[in-house]
């Protein structure tokens, strides 16, 4: 199985995402922002970081990278796509997912070990979790507050498109404690915290993030 990991200028967690992909036995394929060829990958991860410095709005500039046009097209026809942190921001800016990620309500970068509750295990990336399962993975960003209008929020909740929610105090002001969402088809997932940094308790708070990567492996294998 081949999973692509995109590197934009300013991507930071691309190596970590690739490490997590290898940890579940898949092949990690490096995709370059300027190259629209997806090299036959079965799924794509948009990693964390500060693409283009995130100087305008997070993800606003990367959305227009050549690689994104291919990814958007494939994802619309069902290719699994996971956006982590900056990747989630890119997904919202690309309108593949609704809403937007805005400044944390405390107005500074926050790096913490965050408890999440999995709310939807029918996506391509969360099938190995139980509904209601709690995991602890790193949250680290300056603009992670999920915002959308009331109608969108009602739709996300009504259709069960919330994938994960923060447990405990709201870390950043996200509406309804939303940490991650999916599209109706369940192939595209955006998640603010970093599962790729929780694949080994030696270097992360737990191995609780590994499920995102084992999930996609089982999905791809069973296809």
């Amino acid at each position: 199985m081949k999973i692509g990991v995109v590197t934009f200028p300013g991507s930071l967690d691309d190596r970590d995402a690739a490490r997590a992909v290898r940890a579940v036995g898949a092949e990690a394929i490096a995709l370059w922002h300027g190259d629209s060829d997806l090299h036959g990958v079965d799924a794509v991860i948009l990693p964390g970081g500060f693409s283009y410095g995130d100087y305008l709005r997070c993800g606003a500039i990367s959305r227009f990278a050549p690689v994104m046009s291919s990814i958007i097209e494939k994802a619309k026809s069902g290719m699994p796509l996971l956006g982590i942190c900056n990747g989630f921001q890119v997904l919202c800016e690309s309108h593949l997912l609704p809403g937007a990620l805005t400044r944390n309500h405390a107005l500074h970068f926050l790096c913490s070990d965050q408890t999440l509750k999995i709310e939807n295990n029918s996506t391509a990336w969360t099938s190995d979790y139980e509904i209601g399962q709690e995991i602890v993975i790193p949250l680290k960003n300056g603009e992670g507050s999920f915002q959308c209008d009331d109608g969108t929020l009602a739709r996300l909740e009504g259709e069960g498109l919330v994938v994960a929610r923060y447990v405990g105090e709201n870390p950043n002001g996200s509406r309804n404690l939303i940490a991650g969402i999916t599209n109706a088809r369940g192939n595209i997932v955006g998640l603010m915290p970093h599962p790729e940094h929780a694949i080994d308790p030696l270097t992360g708070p737990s191995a609780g993030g590994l499920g995102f990567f084992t999930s996609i492996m089982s999905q791809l294998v069973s296809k």
Partner: protein
Amino acid sequence: MSLDTVDIAGTTPERVQPFAELGLKPDEYQRIREILGRRPTSSELAMYSVMWSEHCSYKSSKVHLRQFGDKAPKSEALLVGIGENAGVVDVGQGYAVTFKIESHNHPSFVEPYQGAATGVGGIVRDILTMGARPIAVMDPLRFGAADAPDTRRVLTGIVAGIGGYGNCLGLPNIGGEVVFDETYAGNPLVNALCVGVMRHDQIKLAKASGAGNLVVLFGAKTGGDGIGGVSVLASETFGAGGSTKRPSVQVGDPFTEKVLIECSLEIFAEDLVVGIQDLGGAGLSCATSELASAGTGGMRVALDDVPLRDPSLSPEEILMSESQERMCAIVEPSKIARFLEICKKWDVTATVIGEVTDGVRLVITWHGQTIVDVPPRTVAHEGPVYSRPFSKPDYVDRVNAEKLTIPMPKTAAEVRSAVLQLMSSPNMADKSWVTSQYDKYVQGNTIQSQPEDSGMVRIDETTQLGIAISTDANAPWSYLNPYEGAKLALAEAARNIATAGAKPLAVTNCLNFGSPEDPGVMWQFAETVRGLADGCLEMGLPVTGGNVSFYNQTGDVAILPTPVIGVLGVIQDVRTRTPMAFDRPGLDLYLLGETRNDLAGSEWAYMHHQRGGIAPQSDLQHEMRLIDALLEGQSIFEAAHDLSQGGLAASLSEMALRHNIGATVLLEGEIAVELLSETPGRVVVAIDKGDAHALQSIAQKYDIAITKIGVTGGTTLSINDAEIALDDLRSAFVDTIPRLFG
């Protein structure tokens, strides 16, 4: 605007030049004239003045810093020593590690966010320049009193700036310090450490050799950043109205630096450079003169080829600009095409601005006219050297003679309240409000970070080889006795490495002091360097580099002498490291080392506004035996935590709160001393009951006193008959910093 050329300088010896405004003394200016055999051009004057400044030339500190070389211990680990951009240490398995601390104190007071941000940017480029991939940063910080009005502005800006830059570069922040003391009001200290790793054969040096090789400037375009002083020169030389306003504040662009890092690493991997230098303080003046003087000697640069952000810059200003995110490389002509291709891939501006010549002079032209023609060594290395007068200041004997009058808790109620008070004091309180603004996970190799005793990162995912770093300073002790203070800071940093199970290997330092023109401050400095050099020799740890920051004073009040010492260690298998805190009940707690009445300079004394008394005497032989004992005992320690500020009370509190597991402790002797004294050379360890024998035999082997002090478990920290609920301890510990700065 008329251009001042070498030709004109030769025919107008009488022209009055604004050397004093540029910080040069009359005799220094005279020396430049002697070196050149004529008056300098305005561009040459710009270069000499900035390169002969205290910051770049180390003119007041050089005579003392020589001791690091003279007293250097034999070390097989040292691959590159003092003098290059950063020292390089062999950590085995073919890996080389480079690390260094830099200060960015003054700019961070003027504009806290940008000052701190560009401080991180600068040290990261130093590490990159050695050929290494930067893998982590640390940030020892000092601020004025926590409740002083300006501290909020300074602290919040500095912390945001360090996070803003480091996070965007993708460098985990693995440790640092946050210390408050009145003397830092108006003089905050921002010291930034970066560590990088490479293979032995990838080490790069800053030298320009091989006539015909090209000089390439790459990275950000040059603007008028950080050249406040030289505008004087531009205006005085070029008549009224010639100079525009130049910012003295540099603004950082971390995205450009991140791209520059990746671009440079790709260039290094293909072995495309002969030499390389980053542009930091003194910008192109520094890079060209240092590269040339370390090489075969000659270089020619066409300054008008430098890409500019602000086209109105004069040549003098271009030479002195401190625009960030720039590098200068020496490239063989056959490799330049590939070099430029990689730059293009990363969208990095790269321009050939000159070449190495077989001459012995650095020649710089501006639209074909020669504006600089100098022997590069005289700019880079042969600046003035001062043996500034120093003498022991009067305060020392006076404060050493002072008797401490501080409360000494005795009853259970007094002990309880003392511990709560201590742990809620700004210096001891939980710093996670600060450290949670830093990414500690990026790169996926962080094994330990805040609040552990040292930062630890893995450098090989297969063999699990890792390194650990700690930075420490104890300014109150240095104030009482700078010689001992330096040794004690060294010992503490080394101990913090060893508690985690890493073997100390090498030292870097950042020496923060007041004005060197004050003989008392100069004495503090001289004593500090002597202490550090002696300490390093005794402990067998080479100093690989460092930084000196003088003039940290407001009026005639200097900061406390603050030598920040960084120690690097190696650990063969990071999975075996010892964490600072126990994570289960039923373990036995032991104190390694002896407790004496060392309250002078302690946090408890500081909280009661007492600075007097006599600093503890270092015992480095004991420290070395303790380090050996810690390394040998690593496999039986469930936890090990250094005792420093706040003594045993602080260490036990920190251990208990980490995983919310209490402890019951019984102490003999005077309880206030047992809990609050800061006697160096002590560590608390937690072991399984079954390992008591093993611990005893290690202690015996290394002649380390051990005392069983208690057991882990419960929901309180009980000390003799005092009971402190962990919940109460936690609120005391965690509320202070957010209340002050949140």
